[in-house]
C-alpha cells in the first residue's frame, strides 16, 4: 500500500511538472500593437554586408533597404530615377552621362557626390573585389566624376543594358571613405530609407527608419528580419500573429494559407525553372533530338505537379517589359508525343536514350517534383532521365563544368534580356559551358539588341531571340519561380516585386487593427 502511494505520488508529481512547464505559454514581447518592430520572417540569414560581392537574394534584398542605386527598374521594367535624376546616352551609344541628386547624405552624415559613385564602380571593376557584377560592366572603359553632380561612364562599345546593371543591388552606392578605409562589409553606411542597426548572425538583422532619407521617410520605425529556417514554422508564426510578414517559396506551404488568417501575395520572380540540355554531348548535339524532348514536355503539367497549378509557364525571357508568347517558336505547340517519337526515330533513336540528369536538392522546395514530372513525361517517348540529386556544392561544380546531359535548374533572371542570356549565348560568354549550345544567330541577336537604344527595335530583336531559343531548344523552359509573401491582416502598402526586392517596406505601414 505504502509503495503504491509513493509511486502514484511520484507519477502525479511528474505529470504536474509537465503540465506546469508546458503551460508556460510563450509570449513574444516584441510583436502586437503598432509600436513594436515590424518583423519579417524568412528562411535564411544574410551572408555578408558588402553589396558588391553579395549573391544570395536575402543579402541583396536586405542591403537594398540600406543602400540606394543610381537608378531603379519599375514593375514594367522601365528605368526610373533614384540617386541619379536624369541620364543621357550619347548618339554613338558609348557615353552615358548621369545627373546626380542633390542634398543626399549617407547615414553617417557625409554628403553623397559623384566621387562616391565613381569610387563604387571602380571598386566593382577591380578584380580584387571579386564582384559578380563586374561581368555585366565588362564594356565600361572609364568612369569619371564631373563636378559633384555629374557622373560620366565611357563604354568601349554601346551597351544598352548598362543602365539595368546600375539598378542592381550589387551596384549600390558606397561612401568613398568607406572604400578607402576598408569599412565596406564591416559597416553598412548607405543612403537608403533604413539605417543599419545590428546584425546578430543566424538570428536577425535590425533596421531603423532613416528620418533624413532624401525620399519619403519610411512609416515603420524598426524592421527586424528574422531567420526561421523552416517554412512551416514561418506559417505557424504568421498564424500566431507573431510576424508581420513571412517570405516562403514552397508552394505546399503557401497552399495551406487560409485567407482569414493573413494576406497572401503570390509573386512570380525573374528566375525560371528550366531543363537544360547539354548540346555538346551525345545525341543532344542533334537538333531533332532536342526538339523531340521539347515537344514531349507539357509545361502545364509541370506547373500542376510542382505548383498546384499556380504560376505561369514561361519562355526564355522573364524580364518585365518583354512579354512574348511563351511557346511561339517551339517545334510543337501544343505538346505532341507522336511528333516527338517520330523525330527521335528519324534521328535514329527509335529505341530511346538515357540522359544523366543533375538536380540540385536542398536549395528550393520544388526541385524534386519538377524533376520527377519531367522524367515521367519524357519516359513516354523513351527518353530516360537518370536523376542524380546533388547538394549545392556538388551540383554547382558539375553545372559549371557542364558535366551532365541534362540539368533540372532554377536559373536567375534579370530585368534586361541581354543580362539574362548574354552570359550564356554570346561568343566568349562566361557561362558558355553550361549553356551547352553556341549559335551565331543567338550571338548576333543578343549583340544587336544590346547595341541599340531604340525600344521598338529591341522588342523586335528580343522577340526573335525568344523564338530562336525555343526553336533551337538548347534548353526546355518550364515556368517562372514563385515567391510567396504572407502578410498580417493589418499590413498595408506592401507591394511584392518581381526582382524580390523588399524596397516597398519603405511604403509599408501597419493599420490600426494590429
Amino acid at each position, binding site marked *: 500500500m*505504502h*509503495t503504491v502511494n509513493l*509511486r502514484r505520488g*511520484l*507519477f502525479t508529481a*511528474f505529470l504536474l511538472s509537465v503540465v506546469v*512547464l*508546458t503551460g*508556460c*505559454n*510563450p*509570449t*513574444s*514581447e*516584441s510583436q502586437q500593437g503598432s509600436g513594436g518592430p515590424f*518583423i519579417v*520572417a524568412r528562411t535564411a540569414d544574410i*551572408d*555578408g554586408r558588402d553589396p558588391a560581392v553579395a*549573391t544570395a537574394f536575402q543579402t541583396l534584398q536586405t542591403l537594398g533597404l540600406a543602400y540606394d542605386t543610381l537608378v531603379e527598374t519599375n514593375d514594367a521594367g522601365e528605368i526610373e530615377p533614384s540617386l541619379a535624376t536624369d541620364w543621357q546616352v550619347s548618339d554613338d551609344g558609348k557615353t552615358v552621362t548621369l545627373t546626380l541628386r542633390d542634398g543626399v547624405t549617407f547615414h553617417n552624415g557625409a554628403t553623397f557626390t559623384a566621387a562616391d559613385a565613381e569610387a563604387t564602380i571602380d571598386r566593382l571593376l577591380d*578584380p580584387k*573585389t*571579386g*564582384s*559578380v557584377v*563586374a*561581368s555585366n560592366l565588362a564594356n565600361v572603359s572609364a568612369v569619371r566624376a564631373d563636378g559633384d553632380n555629374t557622373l560620366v561612364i565611357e563604354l568601349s562599345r554601346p551597351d544598352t543594358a548598362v543602365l539595368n546593371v546600375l539598378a542592381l543591388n550589387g551596384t549600390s552606392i558606397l561612401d568613398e571613405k568607406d572604400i578607402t578605409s576598408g569599412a565596406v*562589409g*564591416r559597416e553598412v553606411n548607405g543612403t537608403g530609407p533604413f539605417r543599419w542597426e545590428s546584425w546578430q*548572425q*543566424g*538570428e*536577425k538583422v535590425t533596421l531603423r527608419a532613416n528620418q533624413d532619407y532624401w525620399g519619403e521617410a519610411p512609416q515603420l520605425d524598426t524592421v527586424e528580419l*528574422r*531567420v*526561421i*529556417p*523552416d517554412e*512551416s*514554422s514561418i506559417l*505557424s*508564426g504568421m*498564424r*500566431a*500573429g*507573431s510576424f508581420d510578414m513571412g517570405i516562403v517559396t514552397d508552394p505546399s506551404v503557401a497552399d495551406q494559407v487560409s485567407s482569414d488568417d493573413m494576406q497572401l501575395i503570390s509573386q512570380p520572380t525573374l528566375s525560371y525553372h528550366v531543363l537544360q540540355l547539354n548540346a555538346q554531348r551525345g545525341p543532344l548535339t542533334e537538333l531533332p533530338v532536342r526538339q523531340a524532348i521539347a515537344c514531349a514536355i507539357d509545361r502545364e503539367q509541370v506547373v500542376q505537379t510542382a505548383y498546384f497549378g499556380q504560376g505561369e509557364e514561361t519562355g526564355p525571357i522573364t524580364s518585365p517589359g518583354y512579354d512574348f508568347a511563351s511557346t511561339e517558336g517551339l517545334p510543337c505547340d501544343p505538346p505532341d508525343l507522336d511528333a516527338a517519337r517520330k523525330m527521335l526515330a528519324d534521328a535514329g533513336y527509335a529505341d530511346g536514350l538515357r540522359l544523366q540528369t543533375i538536380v540540385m536538392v536542398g536549395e528550393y522546395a520544388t526541385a524534386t517534383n519538377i524533376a520527377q514530372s519531367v522524367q515521367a513525361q519524357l519516359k513516354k517517348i523513351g527518353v530516360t532521365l537518370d536523376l542524380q540529386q546533388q547538394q*549545392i*556544392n*556538388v551540383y*554547382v*561544380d*558539375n*553545372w*559549371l563544368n557542364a558535366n551532365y546531359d541534362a540539368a533540372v535548374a532554377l536559373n*536567375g533572371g534579370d530585368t534586361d534580356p541581354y543580362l539574362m542570356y548574354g*552570359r550564356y549565348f554570346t561568343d566568349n560568354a*562566361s*557561362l558558355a*559551358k*553550361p549553356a551547352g549550345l553556341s549559335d551565331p544567330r543567338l550571338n548576333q541577336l543578343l549583340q544587336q539588341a544590346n547595341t541599340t537604344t531604340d525600344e521598338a527595335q529591341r522588342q523586335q530583336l528580343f522577340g526573335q531571340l525568344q523564338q530562336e531559343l525555343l526553336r533551337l531548344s538548347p534548353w526546355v523552359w518550364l515556368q517562372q519561380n514563385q515567391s510567396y509573401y504572407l502578410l498580417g491582416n493589418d499590413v498595408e502598402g506592401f507591394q511584392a516585386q518581381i526582382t524580390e526586392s523588399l524596397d516597398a517596406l519603405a511604403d509599408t505601414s501597419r493599420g490600426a487593427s494590429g
Partner: protein
Amino acid sequence: MTWRYLSARLGGTFATLAGVTVIVFVVLRALPGDAVTARLGTQAGVLTGEQLAALERYYGVDQPVWQQFSSWLASMLTGNLGVSVDSGVPVLSLILSALPVTLELAVLAILISTPVGVALGMLAASRPGRARDVGVQTLGLVGLALPEFVVASVAVAVLAAVFSYFPDPGSYVPLTESVSGNLSQMLYPALVLSVGLVATIMRTTRSAFLEAANTDFVRTARGKGLSPMRIRVRHVLHNASIPIVTIVGIQFGYLLGGTVIIEQIFALPGLGRLLLTGILKQDYAVVQSTVLFVAFAFVLVNLLVDLTYRGLDPRARLR
C-alpha cells in the same frame, strides 16, 4: 595506479583528437567545390580568372592543402581557432555564443529524460513480462524508432496550434537574462530530444534492474523482510546505477554534437546550427574548429563518466 590510468586515458584522448582533426580536414577538402563556389553558387562561373584568384586568396584556399593544414594547426595550438570567412567573426566567439544553447539543451534533455527513463524502467522491471512491462517496452520501442525530425516537426505543428509556440531564434534569450523567456524556447526542443533518450534510459534501467533483482543479496534482503520499495531503492537501484550512469553520460556527450536536427527545426542558435551552416558554406575554419571542440567535449565527458564509474563501483578501482 590512478596516475597510470589517467595518463593512459589522456594519451588516448590526445590520439582521438588528433585523429578527428585530420579526418575533418581531409573530408572537408574532399567535398566538391570550395568556399568560393559554396558562396556564389552557379554565379561563380561569371568571374574572371583574376577575380577568382583574388577570392581564393581571400578565402585562403589558394595554398596547397598541407600548407592550409599546418597553418591551421599552428594557429589552433596557440588558441586561435580562426576566423569565419563567411561573416568575418572569430570562430571562438561564434562557438562561445553557440555553446550555452547546446549545453543547456543537453542538460535539460538529460534532466527530463533521466528521472522519467529510470522511473519507467523500474516500472517495467517490477513485473517483467506482464502488461505494464509490455506497455512500457512498446512505448520505448516507439520512442526509439521515431526519428527525431519527425517528432520535432509534429511537435512544432501541434505546439503552434495549441500553444501559439513556434521556433524563433529572434526571441531566444539567455537563461541568465530571463528564465521563463529562455525556457519557453528551450523546453520544447529538450522535450523532443528526451523522447529517444527516455527510451534508451528506460531499456538500460530495466535490464540492469532485472539483472540486479536476481542476485543473491536481493534474495537475502527479501528474506530479512525488508519492504519491496526499500529493496528496490537501496539495493537494486544502487547496484543498477552503474550502467545507468554510463548510458546517461554517453548520451550527454552525444547530445553536445547531436542536436543538429533539433536546432535546425527549432531554430536555436547552437553548435549544431553553427556546424551545419559552416558545412553548407564550406567555411573551413568554422567546421574544423567546431568539430574539434565538440570532439574535445565528448572525450572530456566520457573521461568524467569513467571517473564517476570508478567512484560508484569499488571493483572498477582495482582494474
